[in-house]
Structure formats: structure tokens, C-alpha cells
């Protein structure tokens, strides 16, 4: 979720030479695609999540349905993770379900748990063009006129994701909503805070508010759970792909709406409440027109408070990787400081007008 900025080496199997890994990848691509042979012409690490590694793969396919030059992405787990997330084969299944539902995602191609390539399960997808750089998207004045329409389109995309509902045999690995709903999330937050070396009274107050304001359960839908600016690609003003499905699961549809709108994901434009790109109205309009369901502002508010708490805890977990895990990474170390930004937002949401004189 957070860019580590750390340099990466090639996907690696202990003891295996880089050439062997490349050969294993080429073999896998050939077998999976029905090609006679595949020649790798490029293998480059992509900047991306702290939890997953993404590699740009350029390959020349001889024979089969993919004959010719192909531009792909290989996605596999990074050496360290931060929070419970889906495995790559599961994420691949979710991506396939989203693709089949008409959501704009990179086309998922093939997955394998063969350890010869990276030592970990992986999947491949088509590489889509564009940028996901949130600061650029929210800051680029040239993009401004197109952003409201992009927000509306993202609302529609979210409605298509939420049209995927349980039960689904292909997604049977996803935990039932009753096991991952707000009550369980609150318990998870408290378990984390109990083990944290420093007391965080603002988070405790926010979690207590959540506990006493849980909305009635709604029919669960597939939630992306990290649907936000920074996780979709724009090529110019065209949406080319919604990325990073590793946190997907069954949830309340308002969960994704609250996450998209929460202040932590508005980047350079705090005033544009829908992901730093537009007013909420355009985003909601897209969602409502496609889903046929109206957005309930009270439910969004609940999930937005939860989003700020979730973001704060993720930020603290990132800095734990330096503070506790000893990972030498300045970006991770600094991310912990962002928890206080979330705490300010929690106060602004739950105690508006409460700022004491002289604070």
C-alpha cells in the first residue's frame, strides 16, 4: 500500500542463478499460453506496494494464442508483509472475477505456485499503460477538467465490483463477512494497540466510538478494501486499470466508499473529498446510477472514521518494521508519523468545533 522506495533485486530463489529463474519463467509462460517458446526480452522491477513485488516482463511468444511481443506484469510476494492479505493465487482468482464482471483491471493471465521462478506463488497479467502516482494525479492542473468524470467512472467501477456477491464457488476462500465485519475489525485494532509500546488515546477514543455506532449489517458484497487514489492507473484521462486486489473480501459496500473518501487518500487536495479528485457528489452519482442503491451518508461516515483508524494502524505497523523488525528503510520509519495525521482527522470528524483555545 505504501511505496517503500527501496531498491529491489531480481525475484530470487535461494541458490538459483538468475538465468535459471529467467528460463523457468519463460518455460512457465510458454506452457501456460500454449506457445512453442517464449523469449524474455525485459525483466524490470516496478515501483509499487511494500507488500507485493511487481515486475515488468517483456516477452516474445512464438506460436499459440499470444504469438508476438507481449507486455506483462508478474506479481509475487515481497520478502516482508505488513497485514493479513490474500495469497497470490487467491488474489488472481479475485482479479479474474472482477475482470469477468466488467471491472477495468489488467487482464489476468496465468498463475503458478511453482517455486522454481521466484520461490513464491505468482501470477501474471497484461501490463496497462499510465500512472497511478497519486500526488501527480491530484496535483496536475492539466488533469483537473477531467477529474470529475473520472470520479464518476470510478463510482461505476465500484458498483461493478460490488455486484459480485456471495456465495461464489470461485471465491470460497474469502472469509465470511460475519468473521471480518466491523466488530472483528475493532477487536483487531485493539489487539494491535494492546501490543503497541506507546499509548494512543485518540485511537482508543475513535475505536470506542466505532464500537458504540456499528451500523446494522447489510448484505455483503465483494469489497476491494484498498480502492483509492494511488491504486488506479490513468493513461492521460483514461482509466486503464484498478490495481492491488490483495485485501479484497466480503464487506459492507460503504466500506469501500468510506476508504476512497477518507482524508488519508486525498493527497495534494484535501478539499476534494472523493479521493482528492472531485466532490463526493460525482463519485456517489456514478456509484448510485450503476448499482441502483443509494449511498447512505451516515454509513459512509462510520466507515470513514474506521478508515482513519485503519490507516493510522497501518502507518504504525509500517514503522514497526523499522522500530521492531530492524528493517533499514526511511520511508517505513517516517510513515509511522502519519498516524497522527489520521488522529487529527478522527478528532475533526468526531469532535467538530471542539478545538480548545490556545491549542
Amino acid at each position, binding site marked *: 500500500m505504501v*511505496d517503500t*522506495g527501496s531498491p529491489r533485486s531480481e525475484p530470487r530463489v535461494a541458490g538459483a542463478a538468475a538465468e535459471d529463474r529467467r528460463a523457468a519463467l519463460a518455460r512457465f509462460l510458454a506452457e501456460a499460453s500454449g506457445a512453442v517458446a517464449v523469449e524474455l526480452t525485459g525483466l524490470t522491477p516496478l515501483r509499487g506496494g511494500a507488500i507485493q513485488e511487481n515486475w515488468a516482463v517483456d516477452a516474445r511468444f512464438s506460436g499459440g494464442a499470444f504469438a508476438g511481443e507481449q507486455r506483462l506484469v508478474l506479481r509475487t510476494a515481497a520478502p516482508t508483509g505488513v497485514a493479513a492479505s490474500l495469497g497470490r493465487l487467491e488474489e488472481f482468482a479475485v482479479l479474474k472475477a472482477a475482470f469477468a464482471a466488467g471491472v477495468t483491471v489488467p487482464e489476468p493471465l496465468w498463475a503458478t505456485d511453482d517455486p522454481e521462478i521466484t520461490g513464491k506463488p505468482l501470477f501474471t497479467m497484461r501490463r496497462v499503460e499510465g500512472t497511478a502516482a497519486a500526488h501527480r494525479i491530484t496535483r496536475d492542473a492539466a488533469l483537473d477538467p477531467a477529474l470529475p468524470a473520472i470520479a464518476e467512472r470510478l463510482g461505476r467501477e465500484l458498483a461493478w465490483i460490488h455486484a459480485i456477491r456471495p456465495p461464489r464457488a470461485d471465491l470460497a476462500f474469502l472469509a465470511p463477512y460475519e468473521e471480518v465485519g466491523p466488530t472483528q475489525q475493532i477487536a483487531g485494532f*485493539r489487539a494491535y*494497540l494492546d501490543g503497541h509500546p506507546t*499509548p*494512543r*488515546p*485518540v485511537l*482508543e*477514543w475513535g*475505536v*470506542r466510538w466505532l464500537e*458504540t455506532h456499528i451500523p446494522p449489517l447489510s448484505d455483503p458484497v465483494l469489497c476491494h478494501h484498498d480502492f483509492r487514489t494511488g491504486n488506479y492507473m490513468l493513461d492521460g484521462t483514461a482509466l486503464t486499470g484498478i490495481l492491488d486486489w490483495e485485501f479484497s473480501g466480503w464487506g459492507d459496500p460503504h466500506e469501500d466508499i468510506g476508504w476512497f473518501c477518507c482524508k488519508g487518500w486525498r493527497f495534494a487536495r*484535501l478539499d476534494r473529498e472523493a479521493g482528492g479528485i472531485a466532490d463526493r457528489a460525482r463519485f456517489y452519482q456514478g456509484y448510485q446510477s450503476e448499482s441502483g442503491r443509494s449511498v447512505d451518508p451516515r454509513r459512509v461516515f462510520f466507515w470513514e472514521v474506521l478508515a482513519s483508524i485503519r490507516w493510522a494502524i497501518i502507518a504504525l505497523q509500517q514503522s514497526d518494521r523499522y522500530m521492531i523488525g530492524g528493517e533499514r528503510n*526511511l*520511508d517505513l*520509519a*517516517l510513515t509511522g*508519523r*502519519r498516524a*497522527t*495525521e489520521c*488522529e*487529527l482527522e478522527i*478528532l*475533526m470528524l468526531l*469532535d467538530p468545533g*471542539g*478545538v*480548545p483555545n490556545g*491549542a
Partner: protein
Amino acid sequence: MRDLPTGSALLALARDVLLNDLMPLLPPAAHLEARLVANSMAIAEHEAISGAAPAQRILHELQELYGERGEGEEGLMRRLACDLRAGAFEEGEPRERHAHEILWRLTIAKLRDANPRFLNANGFS
């Protein structure tokens, strides 16, 4: 006891050199990391300037809330966290307002050091 310029003044100057003199010499791939270094220096500079005063103010507030003089900041802060989890101060009593004011003061004081720009962007000076 210490010589001048102060540590915070040196940090400010070093940050200026990093951003304005060294940054143009670095390859673009290193710019993000250099900005993170500059951000870290800014936080250290702000914390050196504000010193122990913000923590002292919060301790004073906590001691007033609890009527305690003996316990230190860490212990009282932990007590406040536990009380808020348990739903204390929720009866509209004056102590509820006082507890919330401490949360505001604590958060604003931390952001003054860590991210004053974010504070400004949210309408706080």
C-alpha cells in the same frame, strides 16, 4: 554549554544544502529518498526547537484531569487511553470536555513537529 550554531540551526542549514545544492546533482531515482531525508531533518529540527515544553504542558493537563501529581506522562497517558476505551467521561461531565481537549492539544502539538504543513492545510495555524 553548547557551541553555536545550535543543532536545530545546523539541521535547517543542512536541509537547505541537501534540497538546493545536492538534489540537482542526484540521479532522479534518488530524489524520493533525498526528500525523505529532508523530511526527517525537518522533524528533528522542529523537535529540537520545541524541546520538552509540549510534553510538559500535556503532563500538566493530565495531572489536572486526574488530580494526580505523582504519576508521569507515560503512566497518565496510558490511563487516559484505558479510560477512553472503557467509555469513561461519556456522561457529558466537564471531565469529558477536558479529556477531549487533551486529545486535541496532544495531536496538534505532535503535528507542529511532524507535519506543520498538514496542520495548516486543515485550517490550524
